[in-house]
């Protein structure tokens, strides 16, 4: 490329003498400075006719063609930018009139300047967005000067149209929302604009904004762009303060957000946020003082708009909107009169009043009704800004593979991953250029959290990350693969692979998933893809609003709110009948309602909806989780477990699902595996939020009291308002036979909440097991009055009715006692027919039958309960309801069996602390299967 001739304007190295004046310095080739200046001394009258040159030229019709650049004929000059000039030009042969931008004379200083200009052109040409000025052509003129053409914006730019827009605030907000989305688009492709100002936002004939002048746009890691020239600024009023801090500042999208806010501010008030006598003053002010509030200058606007502007103009970039998209969303919300900036949901503890079923309310409830946290988020808002900050060296067709997660024992499996990696590499290479890398990271704690994924992506410089979750069913392996965008963690592809008995399964896997993975990697732009993965319920405005509102209501944990949420979800389902998400949420809401009020029609609704949801989208984590919740409520724990695992397979490991899996294992009588999952879950989250009590219960069932006490004490410490810890400790004392100790705790416990019932239940149980039947009868009597059918899900599965009956029996009041027990029998039988596979329910029946002397039946049901998973042999040993069976050999044998089974499990569970997990994962004793 020939360097332009203004390079001639350098002082050359060779000194020559001017023949005319003998001066020995030259300016340009052959031009002598001295002569030039001498010439300027000429008689002024000679210089009178300065327009004469132009005249002469046009007179003579110099055979100098109209200025042609490539296929364009330059018409006239529109304006001047930083290093470029913009002309109107006509295109041949179409005749279309376009804007043509070319490096200006001042800009033609060096090869680097030309390269910069070229970069701007290529950046802009790569963008295709309705609000980014489209570039038609990038080329070079004959003498090597680059230029490009773009759409001619007929209404000039925001700077010139400012006045016209002054009285149309809504129009201004709308324009800026569109600009924000355009900027988001460029961020996602790795470019910050860095020079947003009204002059750079062009307007076409229909007032549609077109962002232009990406001249200072840059990759983050491009070293030659470290400096910023003040001279290219008209005014720094739109510069984020950190931009002036120099090359060491790490600019993020927030810098562009600032500019957007400043422009909006000016459009609405007529002046930029900061004014100053000179550029430096403005910059200093912007970094020293907080930005003025919108309403200081005009009372026209409401607080929300003021808040939006203020948030853009925060000095600290991390406090601003973290993405242009977030800003656009809030602006749109304002335009629609909707509330801006979502409030985070808080989960209050005090829901127990209405709960009938479970004692572990906060934990279980949230596990069961937790709604697609991550999946919903990414579909609605989280565009993951870091995708904009990718390194320029990332290959586009690159995928990193993390060690697979073995779901059966929750350990990483790097070996499977390795073999799949090489097979995949082979397959991909046959399809085209692609790179597969194996990574060691990920085999750590958080397993597939967004941070982990990003780190993996960066470590191996991959654009996508493949995770696998494997398990063995009937001897055959099953792996669920998820391909995630390394920058954002968003899922791009979900694929379930089932071993069909092939010889080389790794090869088979490569063959099967290679093509779809390659197809995904070949796509330049994943936003389209993720768009199409968006649930139809979120694409429809009405349905979306209903879903989001319903979700918020669900987190309030009152029946009234739940009912309203159910109505909203029903609306969403009607509006978008093929929205798997809407059905999932409706299912979850309906199921949750049955926690509060045992209205089984809601459970049926939940089940129908959940099944629909799964059918509509078999790879939707939300659907499977909803179904898991339904099964759990039905007491079908095996199915619930399967669905919960499927949730992990389809939407990855999430803390709430993990908790659900844990409580299901617990219900199935596998506290060891439950523990596994609970600990796993707490690692993901980083805290063991509310899980400690559940962990305590598991240890208690495993008869490892030391661990159990530790866990309960932790719970009590971390959640002093929650009685679970304290009640748990009581429970241990009781099981050890320390009645006095247990009683004392109940009396003195800080966690003593009368209205919650747990305390009362504990107190009653203590007396019951201590065989103080009179006291027990009174306590259970009180409890039964408030809640006749309750108590069954507390420790020991002692329903108030059966306890009362037994107590009266024991006190000598046989008739009364038995009458009550008969009543209970009927109820328990009904319960068993409803939930035949729920060990707790069957156990309760056995207890009642034992109290009534129905030995055979009792033993049979007890046996069933044990085989279904009942393992609390210590309660069994102390429970007065089973007195009639104490001398029975079979009974004694059963007790023994359970206790040794538990001992086995206990041995196999090690207390898992962080170090052990990290260091010894592959040394963990297998045998958890």
């Amino acid at each position, binding site marked *: 490329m020939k360097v332009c001739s*203004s390079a001639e304007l350098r*002082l050359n190295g060779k000194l020559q003498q001017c023949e*005319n004046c003998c001066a020995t310095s030259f300016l340009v080739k052959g031009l002598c400075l001295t002569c030039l200046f001498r010439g300027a001394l000429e008689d002024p009258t000679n210089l009178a006719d*300065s327009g*004469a040159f132009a005249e002469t030229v046009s007179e003579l019709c110099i055979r100098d063609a109209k200025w042609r650049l490539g296929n364009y004929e330059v018409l006239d000059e529109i304006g001047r930018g930083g290093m470029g000039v913009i002309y109107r030009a006509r295109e041949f042969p179409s005749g279309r009139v376009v804007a043509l931008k070319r490096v200006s004379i001042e800009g033609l200083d060096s090869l680097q300047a030309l390269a910069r200009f070229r970069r701007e052109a290529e950046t802009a040409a790569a963008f295709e967005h309705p609000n980014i000025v489209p570039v038609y052509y990038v080329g070079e003129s004959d003498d090597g000067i680059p230029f490009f053409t773009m759409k001619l914006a007929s209404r000039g730019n925001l700077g010139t149209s400012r006045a016209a827009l002054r009285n149309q605030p809504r129009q201004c907000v709308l324009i800026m929302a569109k600009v924000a989305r355009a900027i988001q688009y460029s961020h996602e492709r790795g470019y910050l604009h860095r020079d947003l100002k009204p002059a750079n936002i062009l307007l076409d004939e229909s007032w549609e904004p077109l962002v232009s002048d990406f001249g200072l746009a840059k990759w983050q890691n491009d070293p030659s762009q470290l400096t910023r*020239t003040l001279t290219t600024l008209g005014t720094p009023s739109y510069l984020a303060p950190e931009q*002036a801090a120099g090359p060491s500042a790490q600019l993020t999208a927030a810098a562009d957000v600032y500019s957007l806010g400043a422009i909006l501010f000016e459009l609405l008030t007529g002046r930029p946020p900061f004014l100053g006598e*000179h*550029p430096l003053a403005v910059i200093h002010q912007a970094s020293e003082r907080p930005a003025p509030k919108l309403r200081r200058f005009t009372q026209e606007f409401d607080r929300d708009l003021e808040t939006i502007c203020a948030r853009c103009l925060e000095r600290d970039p991390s406090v601003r909107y973290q993405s242009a998209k977030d800003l656009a969303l809030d602006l749109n919300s304002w335009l629609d009169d909707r509330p801006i900036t979502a409030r985070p949901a808080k989960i209050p503890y005090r829901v127990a009043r209405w709960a009938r079923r479970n004692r572990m309310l906060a934990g279980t409830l949230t596990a069961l009704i937790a709604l697609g946290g991550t999946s919903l988020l990414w579909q609605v808002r989280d565009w993951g800004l870091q995708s904009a900050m990718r390194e320029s060296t990332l290959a586009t067709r690159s995928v990193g593979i993390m060690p697979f997660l073995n779901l059966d024992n929750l350990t990483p499996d790097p070996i499977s991953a390795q073999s799949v990696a090489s097979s995949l590499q082979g397959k991909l290479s046959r399809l085209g250029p692609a790179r597969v890398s194996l990574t060691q990271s990920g085999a750590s704690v958080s397993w597939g959290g967004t941070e982990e994924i990003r780190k993996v992506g960066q470590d191996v410089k991959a654009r996508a990350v493949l995770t696998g979750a494997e398990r063995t069913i009937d001897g055959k392996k099953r792996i669920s693969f998820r391909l995630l965008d390394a920058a954002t963690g968003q899922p791009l592809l979900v694929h379930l692979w089932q071993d069909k008995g092939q010889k080389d399964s790794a090869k088979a896997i490569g063959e099967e998933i290679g093509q779809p993975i390659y197809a995904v990697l070949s796509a330049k732009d994943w936003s389209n893809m993720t768009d199409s993965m968006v649930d139809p319920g979120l694409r429809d405005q009405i349905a979306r609003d209903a879903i989001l509102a319903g979700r918020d209501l669900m987190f309030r944990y009152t029946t009234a709110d739940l009912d309203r949420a159910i109505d909203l979800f029903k609306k969403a389902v009607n509006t978008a009948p093929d929205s798997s998400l809407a059905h999932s949420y409706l299912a979850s809401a309906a199921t949750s309602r049955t926690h509060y009020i045992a209205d089984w029609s809601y459970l049926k609704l939940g089940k129908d909806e959940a099944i629909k949801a799964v059918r509509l989208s078999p790879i939707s984590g939300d659907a499977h989780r909803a179904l898991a919740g339904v099964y759990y409520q039905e007491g079908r724990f095996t199915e619930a477990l399967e669905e919960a695992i499927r949730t992990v397979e389809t939407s990855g490991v999430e803390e709430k699902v993990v908790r659900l899996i844990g409580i299901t294992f617990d219900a199935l009588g596998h506290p060891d595996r439950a523990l596994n999952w609970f600990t796993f879950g707490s690692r993901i989250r980083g805290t063991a939020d509310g899980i400690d009590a559940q962990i305590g219960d598991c240890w208690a069932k495993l008869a490892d009291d030391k661990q159990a006490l530790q866990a309960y004490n932790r719970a009590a410490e971390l959640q002093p308002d929650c009685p679970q810890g304290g009640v748990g400790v009581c429970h241990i004392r009781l099981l050890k036979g320390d009645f006095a100790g247990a009683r004392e705790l109940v009396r003195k416990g800080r966690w003593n909440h009368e209205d919650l019932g747990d305390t009362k239940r504990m107190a009653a149980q203590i007396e019951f097991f201590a065989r103080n039947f009179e006291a027990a009868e009174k306590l259970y009597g009180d409890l039964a009055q408030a809640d006749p059918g309750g108590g069954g899900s507390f420790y020991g599965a002692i329903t108030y009715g059966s306890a009362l009956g037994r107590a009266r029996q024991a006190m000598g009041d046989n008739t009364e006692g038995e009458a009550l027990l008969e009543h209970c029998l009927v109820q328990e039988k009904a319960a068993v027919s409803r939930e035949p596979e729920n060990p707790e329910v069957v156990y309760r029946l056995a207890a009642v039958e034992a109290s009534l002397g129905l030995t055979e039946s009792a033993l049979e049901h007890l046996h069933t309960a044990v085989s279904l998973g009942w393992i609390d042999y210590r309660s069994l040993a102390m429970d007065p309801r089973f007195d009639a069976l104490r001398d029975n050999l079979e009974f004694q044998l059963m007790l023994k069996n359970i206790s040794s089974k538990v001992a086995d499990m206990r041995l196999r569970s090690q207390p898992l602390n962080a170090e052990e997990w990290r260091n010894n994962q592959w040394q963990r004793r297998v045998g958890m299967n």
Partner: protein
Amino acid sequence: MLEQLFSDVHADRVRSCNVLHPLTHFATTRWSLIRAEQDSQGRPGGNDALAELCQIYWRPIFTFVCRRGYSVADAQDLTQDFFIEVLEGKLIQSADPERGRFRSLLLKSLTNFLIDRKVKSRRRKRGGAIQFVPWEDWIDEASTHKILSTNGLAQASDETVFDFRWASTLAERALHRLREECESKGHRRLFEVLSDYLAADRGDISYRHLSMLLGVSEASVKKLTHRFRVRYRVLLREEVAKTVKTPEQVDDEVRYLCSALSSGACSNGDESM
């Protein structure tokens, strides 16, 4: 003679209308613009002139600082710091525009600035990280400076070198503008051809060659080249005019620069005359 304050834009229009005598209308001097900035309440966009200032005139400043013995990197920093002080209005306030010309004022301020800096140990100014000039340009200029110091100007005083660089800056700018005028009317090629002959005298020009090249008669070529030069001179005078206050001063300034150029140029006494 009244001092007329016109914006550059207006002046351009005026020129192109060719209505009035060019010497009675001056593009607003740098002075006036700067003073206007001081008074204004910071109209957005009103700082263009100051920013432009830095971009246009940094080379002589930089060259001077280099001549004073600073390393390129230090000279860079100092130049920038100097402009920051200019932007902050410190130097202008203390200057008396009635007396000196922009060039001499700038030089004087620069000299003081450097002394000041030497006395107080060098402190990085706040905002000094803002780059006025692209990195590449510094490098270019630094290499130019090297050239300067190896030729006959090595013996010249620092002030002379400053003036020299100043003059060449003005000459370059005038050339830029002429080039753009031609380009915007589609006469790029014409400019290329004629610019070779901008300073040369009559005898030197091959009119026949040009006439063939341009496809016009020799007589037309003569007229063309003459007017081309005239146009350039007008532009050059305008550039000079921007740095002085009154029209009378333009001639003085040009004369001054001529002498600065000759004295520097002919300091090498070995050249025969």
